[in-house]
């Protein structure tokens, strides 16, 4: 029993009186102004110009709150960013909540507030949603799932097929912060000077670089597997390779220190507010300047280039020590439940 009424009960997902109260008290006040008004089974959306991009993602991060973000902001930005790196501006989101019996309303409210703030910041509207409750022990606190519809920005024609030797590799800021912030929170290392997640919308970067869109060949948000996985997927099977310069890769010292202590490579640690891109050398400087003019891209840097020869199909790095090595895909489940 829950005499104080401060916990989620199975009945909150049962479709009856408590479900209605949960929707009326927690969902409608936050999201009820747009297409959710009147709680239709499906949202009516106005036409959005040209082609549409569509994506979906699920969020199971543990713990749900970590320095720099939480599962709510992650669920919004994860989907907004998947659309952004395809050259699309997110317009509408769906939001599904899977709650564990016994979850406190305090946690739920903090997460929903965070969804609201992140959606506003990213300029996207939660248009439809669903809530389910599962018995205690059958999920871990709460899981979120979001899908997103976005409108294509003009000028972007992204494909690794367009990449040529001599192209430049850019990253929009320090790498690996999200993974290290979650690990620090999980291991209870979190401290004032410790790693902070970079969780944020990268749409401002994509919009700022839109005038140079034609020269940008490929973009990714390096989430699971980090920059190393994103670049390896880009290079695999290609008649060229990627050469990174370790000294040029931006790293926050707190994340680098924790990665060192845990024996992890920061290039394998996820980012949740970064873009890694390959672009024509003639626009690289201009793209960097446009990124650095945004709040999320202030520490953007050129970190490597496309090369031909010994490293074809692979990612390599000139180390700070002056040597060279392969930058491999991360192996196995290095960082489970990181997003």
């Amino acid at each position, binding site marked *: 029993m829950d005499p104080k009424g401060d916990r989620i009960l199975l009945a909150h997902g049962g479709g009856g009186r408590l479900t209605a109260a949960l929707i009326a008290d927690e969902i409608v006040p936050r999201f009820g102004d747009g297409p959710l008004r009147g709680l239709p089974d499906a949202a009516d959306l106005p036409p959005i110009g040209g082609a549409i991009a569509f994506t979906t993602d699920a969020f199971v991060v543990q713990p749900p709150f970590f320095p720099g973000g939480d599962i709510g902001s992650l669920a919004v930005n994860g989907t907004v960013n998947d659309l952004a790196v395809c050259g699309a501006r997110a317009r509408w989101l769906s939001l599904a909540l899977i709650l564990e019996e016994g979850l406190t309303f305090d946690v739920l409210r903090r997460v929903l507030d965070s969804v609201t703030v992140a959606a506003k910041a990213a300029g996207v509207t939660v248009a439809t949603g669903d809530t389910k409750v599962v018995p205690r022990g059958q999920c871990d606190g709460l899981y979120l799932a979001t899908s997103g519809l976005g409108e294509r920005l003009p000028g972007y024609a992204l494909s690794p097929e367009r990449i040529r030797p001599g192209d430049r590799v850019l990253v929009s800021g320090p790498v690996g912060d999200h993974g290290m912030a979650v690990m620090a929170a999980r291991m209870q290392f979190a401290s004032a000077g410790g790693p902070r997640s970079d969780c944020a919308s990268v749409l401002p970067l994509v919009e700022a670089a839109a005038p140079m869109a034609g020269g940008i060949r490929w973009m990714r948000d390096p989430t699971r597997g980090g920059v190393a996985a994103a670049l390896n997927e880009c290079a695999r099977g290609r008649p060229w390779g990627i050469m990174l310069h370790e000294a040029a890769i931006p790293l926050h010292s*707190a994340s680098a220190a924790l990665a060192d202590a845990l*024996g992890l490579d920061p290039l394998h640690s996820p980012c949740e507010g970064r873009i890694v891109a390959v672009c024509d050398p003639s626009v690289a400087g201009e793209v960097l300047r446009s990124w650095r003019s945004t709040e999320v891209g202030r520490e953007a840097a050129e970190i490597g280039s496309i090369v031909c020869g*010994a490293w074809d199909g692979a990612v*390599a790095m000139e*180390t700070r*020590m002056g*040597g*060279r*090595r*392969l930058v491999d895909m991360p192996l196995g489940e290095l960082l489970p439940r990181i997003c």
Partner: protein
Amino acid sequence: MRFTEGFRDPTVARALAAGLRAAAAGDRRLCFMEVCGTHTMAVGRHGLRALLPPNVRLVSGPGCPVCVTPSGYLDAALELGRRGAVLATFGDLLHAPAGDGRTLAGWRGAGGDVHVCYSPLEALALAEAAPSREVVFLAIGFETTIAPTLMLAVRAHRAGIRNVSLLTSFRRVVPAMEAVLATPDVRLDGFLCPPHVSTVIGADAYRPVAERYGRPCVVAGFEPLDVLAGLLELIRLATAGRAEVHNEYARVVTPKGNPRARALIEEWLTPSDAWWRGLGRLPDSGYSLRPDRAEWDAARRLGVEVGPGAEPRGCRCGDVVAGRIDPPECPLFGRRCTPDRPVGPCMVSSEGSCAAWYRYERAGRT
């Protein structure tokens, strides 16, 4: 916040690399062994092999505990599991294959009780939580790991916890180095000695290797500048024909090591013969529980025997740990044997030579 920055200074690295080239000038070929798996990883991660002069070769040695542990040990561990024991282990042993290819991970997937511990002391909580069951800690490792593992028995003894024991496969690093030198087809000019082990046994422990076999030994840390400085020292000593022990890692390692850890080892263990992959049965190269401590010995308590076991077919891990070949010379490397589907132990452990080569050096060789 970045405590290691000073040991990764590119300017110093360039100077040391130039020093290596100058010290190794001439056409004498030099071959050094880095004994420890963490050194192998540091060499790969920082791309240090590219900084070596062409006549200097660095081979990996028998310092990765998972790599040298024979498959018979895993046969015994799985047998203990089959008889109902709760197994507690360090994570890197989870995927090491037994003689028939079975693993602890597979046993866990089939419902076996296998717990991955960061500290051996976690086994105490397991024993307390399941007082009717035997909890066996899979106690492998060199001198670095031995003392903290013995603390499990010390604490259990103090707390009166009786249902915990150790399946030991402890290793001593110096006899392994001597065995490598005695291997007929391995020609070494010196050793880059393992730093963490040296914090326990002390730099003086390598004197017999230097004196008896006439090879220089340099203790060096794991940071890239440590490795380069250690190699520079080795080249200088080897070219001058000076078989001495030098301690580049004096900020951590003392000549005599850690007296408390050594006392604990002496109090609990006695040197014994041990089976090594690639090196065979080496006299006094391991440690067993002393007869008066036999009650903590899982093998004796539960009546299992730890034999050498069978090597996987075609696997040349034995040649790798003895420094006879580099990992890519094994016909399975990168084909049938990868970190995702390892055949041999050197590909299993994250500090194994094969895993390090696969991760950092399998491409880009021109």
